[in-house]
């Protein structure tokens, strides 16, 4: 048992846990942070894009020493069929700003850096220490944690759970149900190394400029999911993920999808000559607003992936994690200043503050999307094929007159999805989106 009593114990040293621990330690609170990995970042997997805004609100001058790969100046959205893609690319020199908005990062390095800031701020971090359960007083209030080390208990006024997507502590302690296969995606990712110059010429980049490609279509073989390709300084991150229940139903394997994605004629040239140095897999909570567990209780708060804080439509997660972590930390500091206990009633302030941020607003806006996608999987197969066929008809010069081509395209949409089907999809999407 650690004899010292803490103002807060933070479980996990990912973006949410680090944001919470940093925010509290910086304000002079006595913080103990527990991480099961060998070092912060050793267990953490992400694409990975860093959204500057969320981090700026915690560490305004992070750009001075954070390990950043490339700032994103170009976004490509691809809908793919088996041989083609139809893309929407947006590239702007405006993204070459003094304080860029998005960066590619390598999490093992970034999390280590972030954790260094947390420790500089005064939090005590113990790695290779797994929290096994929450300790409660007779009234059921959470008063500390038990770890897997000898003499492994520690006590605090509040426990912040930033334990990630498959939060076993919260599950074991009955704070939230087990993950459901239809609200969580399984993504696999590889890091392919290439010389800087090759990446820069292949993706049309200069200096530290970077490109992000998000892809959907037949690459997920009829399942709900997306693929991605991100440029790092000397490597390319490529990955693909689908909802777990879809994998279970289809019997497809995640690595099988990734292999096929890598072999796609539009992708293969981008990876040509590269060496795969690293592979990883990760669960992503994609159930959205409707899948969110309780976020606080007597003596505890949930932050980050553990609270299902992911906006799957916009591929945002780490920024929600950092923001929820920061606001949880600020709430605890606020209570401490007022000399109030971390009761359920008092911690409701956490949710009140969250409601005012983009986190809850976005999650609420898209609350119908997961269900919509779950019920309309044809979107991932039918439309990419139709779009690609239409583009091909339109761009191929073969003596067929343009009016006939228009007719042909319209026909293909009608036979591919029927008119009521097309209108229905559009309406359903619009309804889920608003």
């Amino acid at each position, binding site marked *: 048992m650690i004899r*010292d009593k803490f103002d807060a114990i933070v479980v996990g040293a990912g973006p949410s846990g680090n944001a919470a621990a940093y925010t509290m330690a910086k304000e002079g609170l006595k913080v103990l942070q527990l991480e099961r990995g060998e070092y912060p970042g050793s267990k953490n997997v992400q694409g990975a894009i860093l959204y500057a805004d969320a981090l700026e609100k915690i560490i305004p001058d992070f750009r001075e020493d954070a390990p950043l790969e490339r700032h994103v100046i170009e976004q490509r959205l691809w809908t793919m069929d088996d041989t083609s893609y139809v893309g929407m690319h947006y590239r702007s020199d405006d993204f070459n700003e003094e304080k860029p908005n998005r960066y590619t990062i390598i999490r093992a390095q970034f999390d280590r850096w972030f954790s260094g800031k947390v420790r500089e701020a005064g939090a005590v971090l*113990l790695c290779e*220490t797994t929290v096994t359960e929450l300790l409660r007083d007779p009234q059921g209030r959470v008063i500390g944690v038990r*770890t897997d*080390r*000898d*003499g492994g208990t*520690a006590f605090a006024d509040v426990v912040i759970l930033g334990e990630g997507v498959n939060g076993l502590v919260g599950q074991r302690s009955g704070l939230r149900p087990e993950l459901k296969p239809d609200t969580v995606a399984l993504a696999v990712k590889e890091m392919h190394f290439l010389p800087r110059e090759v990446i820069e010429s292949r993706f049309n980049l200069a200096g530290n400029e970077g490109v992000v490609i998000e892809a959907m279509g037949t690459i997920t073989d009829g399942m709900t999911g997306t693929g991605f390709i991100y440029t790092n300084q000397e490597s390319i991150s490529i990955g693909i993920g689908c909802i777990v229940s879809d994998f279970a139903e289809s019997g497809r394997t995640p690595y099988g999808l990734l292999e096929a994605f890598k072999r796609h004629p539009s992708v293969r040239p981008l990876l040509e000559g590269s060496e795969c140095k690293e592979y990883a897999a990760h669960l992503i909570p994609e159930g959205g607003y409707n899948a969110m567990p309780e976020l606080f209780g007597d003596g505890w708060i949930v932050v980050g992936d553990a609270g299902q804080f992911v906006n799957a439509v916009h591929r945002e997660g780490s920024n929600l994690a950092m923001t929820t972590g920061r606001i949880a930390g600020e709430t605890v500091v606020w209570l401490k200043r007022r000399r109030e206990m971390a009761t359920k009633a008092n911690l409701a302030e956490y949710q009140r503050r969250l409601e005012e941020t983009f986190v809850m607003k976005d999650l609420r806006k898209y609350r119908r999307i997961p269900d919509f996608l779950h019920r309309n999987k044809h979107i991932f197969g039918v439309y990419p094929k139709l779009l690609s066929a239409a583009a091909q008809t339109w761009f191929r010069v073969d003596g067929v007159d343009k009016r006939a081509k228009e007719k042909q395209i319209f026909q293909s949409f009608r036979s591919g999805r029927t008119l009521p089907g097309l209108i229905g999809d559009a309406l359903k999407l619009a309804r889920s989106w608003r």
Partner: protein
Amino acid sequence: MHIVVCMKQVPDSAQIRVHPVTNTIMRQGVPTIINPYDLFALEEALRLRDRLGGEVTVLTMGPPMAEESLRKALTFGADRAVLLTDRAFAGSDTLATSFALAAALDKVSQEFGEPPIIFTGKQTIDGDTAQVGPGIAKRLGLNQLTYVARIADLDPAAGTITVERRAEGGLQVLQTRLPVLITMLEGVNEIRRGSLDDAYRAARAQIVRWSAADAGITELARCGLKGSPTIVKKVFAPQGRAEKVHQVPTADRSADELAADVIAAIFRTQPPLEDDLLRFAAGQ
């Protein structure tokens, strides 16, 4: 009893790469670990301390980042950590390293009490020379027990120690007088986990940092690159072999036929082997 363990932070050899053009080790991004052999030494020291009381000091020489390894050693349960770090030590070979460590050990004795036992691992996984331990013993005038598999008996009052030493062709049982330097063999124990209290103490511990001057080292010419007569003439990566896998179809073949197929396949790729065998069979 005060016990000192000398250890080294090394690149994790499981994750190391050699640059294909320059043939130098690419250390960038390669995680570092405590030299695995040193962990057997540390665990042995901790067991002696638990049994006899006293303190375990871990000592390392290295760049400031070696502090990580020391902190890890504290997490395992060591009581004190000393980092010998100075630009003057950069580029040390085993001669210069043992010189600096011996001097630092003198200083450790003065500051924290004379250690009857100093442990090291049998060698490091990056240099693999196994010279530093004996080098320290020689300089400090200690009896040395290398490749120790077990401490059979230790009598601090009488000042004697008996160990089992694995040597070529057998096990030696050796007895000598304290103080000694022991280099510990691998696989003889398993490093402990460390309690939550150990981890907490380690996270907040102040690591003792000594420069060359702090350790009382004045002969800088005997340190670092200047004090290292070893010259690495050439480093090269072994050539990849061009051998291929040969497949022998197994369908519808009896065991005898398969054996004949395999032997034929081997002789096809290695004709000299067949010649040798035939010569051998002919009694030549």
